[in-house]
């Protein structure tokens, strides 16, 4: 082509032809490229459509949990014992903060930030994406919220987030009944996961002790969820689907907070525990364990120093003595032993025993003593209870034998959990041959039967077990399950519905035997010789009761121990069980005063509790009518 030299016109025509050829070629290439592109788009939009559609949804749709409001807890008159209070949290969105250290520095001048807050924030910040809010301070007080509101514009990326937290208005007063919630930790989350309840891991609180723990499944409700469309900054734009949360059930306790308060005051600063039960229902009217603690400390995560202080306190404020504590019941066991003898036909109310001050088993040198030197003389059932005559019960125990004792006293619930709606209840010990064999791999000795007759030796009971058994005496021999929660409701617009309780067991079948024992218990308070006669004096109603002493140190031979002279931690525990009014009992109590010495100390506490209860106006208000 190069060698051919065309003329002007020919050259032009040749160039035009050449151009057309090249243009045609270019057109074909462009067409081919666009067809290839169309096919490539077809592959993305048809063959791979499913995959990309999924990724597009994953981009924009976020599944958010909806937190249910935790159920409320009321007392029997509708007074709130645990509620959900609005609180404010300080969150920071790192992405929107230009200079984080400077911001923390400035915020520190407006709100109180301690090293704990900063460390937790730093850890959480590293674990989350930059556009996600990270909590800096769990609880802002009102002054801090106000200061933040003024300076809001100076702090981009700082958010004050409202949420619901748990509040116990009565603080320490309900610590051992209502218990407390805490923030779920890694172990809790693992446990939820193992139970297939991972959906609950988003809840801010988890019941740790008391009612909060035992009734967790009712109180927490059901977590809901919603699918939220978000933009690239993860901001929610609209709700696509919503499955509402179901709020937790509200609980009504049998507890009367006024009596609870009176019970604490009745101890007059002494340590110990007391349970009050309504005999006809088994409802717990009051339950105190002293000293106590403020459960509100635990809600937002208790500071380590506070926890250490409570946990290492020798007075054990975290320990609920009513269900966890165990001690020998001492003489408070005597009415039950008497009933066992009467019902077994081994004794009659008229049967008498001569108390000389010391009791000996045939052929044995060891003496088992009465508390009064020289003894009580010849006594029948009523006086044996009124004066707490040990010899009477040594004789009776030998008649019953250890097998009779373990068989006949088991019906009152000794040696087994009462079934109260609290976790970790102690069983105590009902002594028996089998128990001793299993525990010590030793046979039973007759002398052990003797001291078992006065509630010493291997016996271990909890205040709740004693109160329950005493309530059975008050309710014509019917043993009930003691319980804190009497009714529940599914929502504030629903009526309270009673929780069904197991039917009571008729554990005393002979009304005459019961009446004889009651006469002895009344004589203990109102008789001239009664061990608790000082506590029975001047009462406008009649009380039936029995004092007792749980020994911390055993008697050494003949030496008598003056409890009041022992160091505090070695003094005996003072015990009292009783009920009132005798004619139609409305309350049964068990009281233990730590290091109280004589049982009369516990009787005095019980008297103050009875007086308070009798003085309370019976205002039963439904919880929905009570002002919050």
């Amino acid at each position: 082509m190069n060698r051919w030299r065309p003329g002007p016109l020919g050259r032009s025509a040749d160039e035009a032809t050449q151009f057309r050829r090249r243009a045609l070629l270019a057109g074909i290439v462009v067409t081919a490229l666009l067809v290839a592109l169309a096919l490539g788009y077809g592959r993305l939009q048809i063959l791979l459509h499913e995959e990309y559609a999924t990724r597009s949804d994953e981009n924009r749709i976020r599944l958010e949990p909806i937190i249910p409001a935790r159920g409320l807890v009321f007392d029997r008159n509708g007074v709130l014992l645990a509620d959900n209070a609005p609180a404010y949290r300080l969150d920071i969105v790192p992405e929107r903060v230009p200079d984080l250290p400077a911001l923390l520095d400035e915020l520190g001048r407006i709100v109180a930030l301690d090293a704990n807050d900063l460390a937790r924030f730093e850890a959480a910040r590293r674990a989350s994406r930059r556009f996600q809010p990270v909590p800096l301070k769990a609880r802002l007080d009102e002054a801090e919220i106000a200061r933040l509101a003024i300076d809001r514009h100076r702090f981009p990326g700082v958010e004050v987030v409202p949420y619901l937290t748990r509040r116990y208005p009565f603080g320490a007063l309900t610590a051992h009944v209502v218990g407390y919630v805490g923030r779920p930790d890694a172990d809790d989350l693992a446990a939820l996961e193992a139970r297939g309840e991972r959906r609950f891991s988003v809840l801010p609180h988890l019941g740790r002790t008391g009612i909060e723990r035992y009734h967790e499944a009712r109180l927490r409700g059901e977590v809901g969820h919603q699918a939220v469309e978000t933009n690239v900054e993860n901001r929610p734009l609209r709700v696509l689907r919503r499955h509402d949360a179901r709020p937790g059930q509200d609980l009504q306790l049998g507890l009367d907070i006024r009596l609870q308060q009176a019970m604490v005051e009745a101890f007059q600063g002494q340590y110990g525990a007391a349970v009050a039960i309504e005999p006809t229902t088994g409802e717990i009217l009051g339950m105190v364990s002293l000293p106590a603690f403020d459960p509100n400390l635990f809600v937002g995560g208790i500071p380590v120093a506070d926890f250490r202080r409570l946990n290492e306190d020798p007075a054990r404020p975290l320990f609920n003595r009513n269900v966890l504590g165990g001690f020998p019941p001492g003489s408070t066991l005597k009415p039950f032993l008497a009933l066992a003898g009467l019902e077994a036909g081994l004794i009659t109310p008229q049967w008498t025993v001569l108390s000389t001050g010391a009791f000996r088993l045939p052929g044995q040198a060891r003496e088992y003593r009465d508390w009064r030197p020289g003894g009580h003389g010849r006594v029948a059932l009523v006086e044996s209870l009124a004066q707490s005559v040990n010899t009477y019960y040594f004789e009776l125990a030998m008649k019953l034998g250890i097998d009779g004792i373990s068989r006949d006293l088991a019906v009152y619930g000794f040696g087994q959990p009462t079934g109260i709606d609290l976790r970790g209840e102690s069983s105590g010990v009902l002594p028996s041959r089998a128990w001793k064999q299993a525990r010590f791999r030793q046979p039973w000795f007759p002398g052990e039967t003797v001291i078992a007759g006065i509630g010493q030796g291997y016996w271990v009971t909890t205040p709740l077990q004693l109160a329950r058994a005493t309530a059975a005496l008050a309710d014509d021999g019917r043993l009930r399950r003691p319980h804190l929660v009497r009714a529940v409701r599914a929502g504030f617009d629903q009526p309270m519905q009673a929780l069904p309780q197991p039917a009571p067991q008729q554990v005393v079948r002979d009304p005459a035997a019961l009446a004889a024992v009651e006469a002895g218990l009344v004589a203990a308070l109102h008789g001239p010789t009664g061990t608790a006669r000082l506590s029975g004096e001047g009462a406008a109603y009649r009380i039936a009761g029995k004092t007792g002493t749980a020994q911390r140190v055993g008697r050494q031979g003949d030496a008598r121990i003056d409890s009041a002279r022992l160091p505090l931690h070695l003094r005996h525990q003072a015990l009292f069980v009783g009920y009132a009014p005798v004619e139609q009992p409305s309350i049964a109590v068990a009281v233990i005063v730590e290091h109280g010495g004589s049982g009369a100390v516990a009787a005095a506490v019980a008297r103050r509790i009875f007086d308070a209860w009798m003085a309370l106006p019976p205002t039963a208000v439904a919880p929905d009518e009570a002002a919050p």
Partner: protein
Amino acid sequence: MSGLLRWLTALAGRLLDRVDGPLLAGLLAIMAASLLVQASAADGELRAVLAQGVRFAVGLVALLILSRLSPTFLREWTPLAYLGSLGLIGLVFLFGQGRSADLWLDLGVFYLQPGELLKLSVPMMAAWFLHQARLPPGWRSLALCAVIIGLPVALTILQPDLGTGLLVGASGVFVVFLAGIAWWRIALFAGIGLAALPVAWQFLMPYQKDRVLTFLDPESDPLGAGWNIIQSKIAIGSGGIDGKGWGQGTQAQLDFLPEHTTDFVFSVFAEEFGWIGVLVLLGLYLFVTLRGLWLAAQARDTYSRLLAGALTLTFSVYVVVNAGMVAGFLPVVGVPMPLLSYGGTSAVSLLAGFGIVMAAGAHRRRWGG
């Protein structure tokens, strides 16, 4: 009244008589699609749509004016236009140094991107030169063409604006190709070009290297450099056959897809109108390209032919590169989708270019045999 109307009709007829109907229809259809997708992306904020409409109007005026210029007139002014635009790029180069995004000259009224002018003036200059040279071009002509094309390309890439530089270069190379450069010479240049690739790599800016590496493996850095291309593919793929519907493209509406009004607008279009929409739009682009090449082939003189053909082919390069880039078939280079993307001088210079194409086709029919 009727006299005024008649005068207006006559005026319109005279203005439009050099305009190629089918080509204009194709361009208007693409512009309509652009306004549609920009309105969707604007989400009620109509100022952006209006601005795009104004740009189209300016471009159409430029198209009408240029379609009426005689090729001879255009050819006579070519060297001046070329030197003028070269001078502007030099200004940007001097004043824009150190700021990679500053490729604009503030003209008071609007910003002018001198790179866009080069897309017209470089093929004009190459065509002007080859119009006088013996064809097919020999070594001497090719060497001069290399200077005419290479100088502005080098200045543009150094700005640095790789996308525009490549398009300017392409527009010049197309002139040479259409002028009938021998195949063995093409093969030789292609060989030299391939061999020079590793050297050219050394001269790329770090972000340009990133783009190429990201293209090779976008998932290696899904939240960083790969984000755009991954989100763009998600937008396209999730559109399916018939799309999510106008204004319903979640990828764009929820801001997952960056640059969704400019370089990645075709992804939005594909998300909202699906594969069917993609076929229609690519069909329109193909039609415009083929019609432009046909018009170029009708031109009377070498200058018009080469220029019109090169401008049309450059237009198709935009389409192929942009559509390939947003779908992840090609590395990301800053090339907009012609007329669809939101942008200033690109739309105006493209429409102006088609005015030249129409002038070339019309003058053939008018004065040709």
